[in-house]
């Protein structure tokens, strides 16, 4: 349950993601999808309800603590760190870095250098996977809109996540790259990562999601396979209503 002043953005909505599963979250504009991801990632505090990870209640944890436990989100409007290089964007996300402690950075230079090299090797492998290897040393500000969305995914992967929340990862991405993205998400799910995928590109949802939940005006409307959900009269109405409004 979450209100923005008078607007009830979420009311009774829920979302469960199992390891290795891709769950689609769809709904008309303003349905509360981004808000639900924000609540799960710890960027918004709900007025009621809870967030669980592996059965543990993490509702009171901040976003950083959740990320360290393996729950990470991407942003609907890509938020690259433009003055860092693409590689630095990924290196930043590497978990448990000793070099982030002042004393280690000053007194254990060789240890920190070795850690950096190991993280860089992993970052470059991820960049190869998302097709951004050639851009590694460019400032992230110079990427195209689609590449920035891929960078968001790469950064999330760098955290060794268990659950990734993707907010419209295909919006603004060129069609061949969307195919690449779909393949990647399936591959990563097969490796055991759970995904929640908010997306308006229905072809992509159909292609990658194991099951789909529909949200409308902050309330759960329907759930099931893509075919079941899209055949549901209420879902069609909600989308049409959304368009008419």
């Amino acid at each position, binding site marked *: 349950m979450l209100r923005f002043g008078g607007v009830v953005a979420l009311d009774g909505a829920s979302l469960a993601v199992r390891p290795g599963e891709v769950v689609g979250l769809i709904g008309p504009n303003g349905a509360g999808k981004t808000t639900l991801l924000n609540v799960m990632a710890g960027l918004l505090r709900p007025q009621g309800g809870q967030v669980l990870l592996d059965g543990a209640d993490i509702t009171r944890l*901040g976003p950083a603590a959740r990320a360290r436990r393996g729950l990470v989100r991407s942003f609907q409007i890509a938020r690259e*760190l433009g003055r860092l290089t693409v590689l630095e964007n990924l290196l930043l996300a590497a978990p448990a870095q000793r070099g982030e402690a002042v004393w280690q*950075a000053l007194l254990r230079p060789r240890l920190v250098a070795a850690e950096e090299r190991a993280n860089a090797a992993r970052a470059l492998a991820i960049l190869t996977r998302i097709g951004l290897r050639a851009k590694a040393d460019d400032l992230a500000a110079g990427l195209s809109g689609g590449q920035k969305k891929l960078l968001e995914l790469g950064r999330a992967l760098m955290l060794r996540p268990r659950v990734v929340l993707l907010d419209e990862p295909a919006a603004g991405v060129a069609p061949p790259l969307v195919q690449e993205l779909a393949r990647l998400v399936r591959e990563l799910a097969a490796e055991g990562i759970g995904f929640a995928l908010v997306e308006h590109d229905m072809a992509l949802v159909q292609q990658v999601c194991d099951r789909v939940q529909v949200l409308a005006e902050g309330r759960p409307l329907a759930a099931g396979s893509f075919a079941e959900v899209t055949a549901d009269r209420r879902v069609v109405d909600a989308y049409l209503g959304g368009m008419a409004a």
Partner: protein
Amino acid sequence: MIAYLITIATLVALASLVGLGLNLQWGLAGLANFGIAGFYAVGAYTVALSPVPGVPALGLAMLACLGLGALLALLTARLEAEYLAIITIGFAEVVRLVSLNEGWLTNGALGLADVPSPVGFLPAGWQPLGFLGFALGMLLASFAVLEVLARSPFGRALRAVRDDDVVAATLGKDVGGLRVRAFALGGAVIGLAGGLHAQFLSYIDPSQFTSIVTAYAFMAVIAGGRGSNLGLILGAGSIFLLLESTRFLKDVIPLLDGTRLAALRLMLVGAGIVLLLILRPDGLMAEPRRLSRQLSPLKEP
């Protein structure tokens, strides 16, 4: 003339130190510190009041400012970074009032005299040069430490916090903790500069710690390039060069009297910075980046 040049060089070294502290706080971590004059004064008074002279006194000055920096940052750790900036203004004002009014401690407007020099053992004629060397040594050591930090994962995390703290948090970074560390460490460096100031002049009073200290530090960092330590030392150097070279304008333009000249010199510095930022919007130097070839033995495909 030589003595004059040594004095200027020493002042540039001190200004560079202040700039280094601000560059960590604001350049890298995005925390504007409008209370630099306050930290600088605390450093100076700590050294002047210290029971021990020399380097240990400077250590005390750094510790005092480290603690105060951490305290200010902790007070606002759960708020937006702008609140810290506001608090620093109040902090500088409190320091000014204490230095003026708490006579039992600071001797008020009369100030404190006879601060021992760390190079007092040298023959008098050699002391200015000796102190310059001492100050440059401190500058070099601070530069080395801050440069290692700026290029480390710690520095990278600070830049991330500066540019988008929400993203940094969603990537697992302890935003508040990073800010407290950066602000405290930067404060310590400014405190060191203030301590050296007291040892250099051997006499301090509240009039030496006005907000112009803060303004010069921001000018040096902006001119040098936010985030670049080398750039800001060049920036501090250029500003003093401009300030000091314009001192001789009155020999060239006979119309100028002292007051006119003082105002004109500050205007020239301002105009110089505007011109520089038009020509080089990012300052003299860019902040360092981590490139893949520095990190990977592999050849580019």
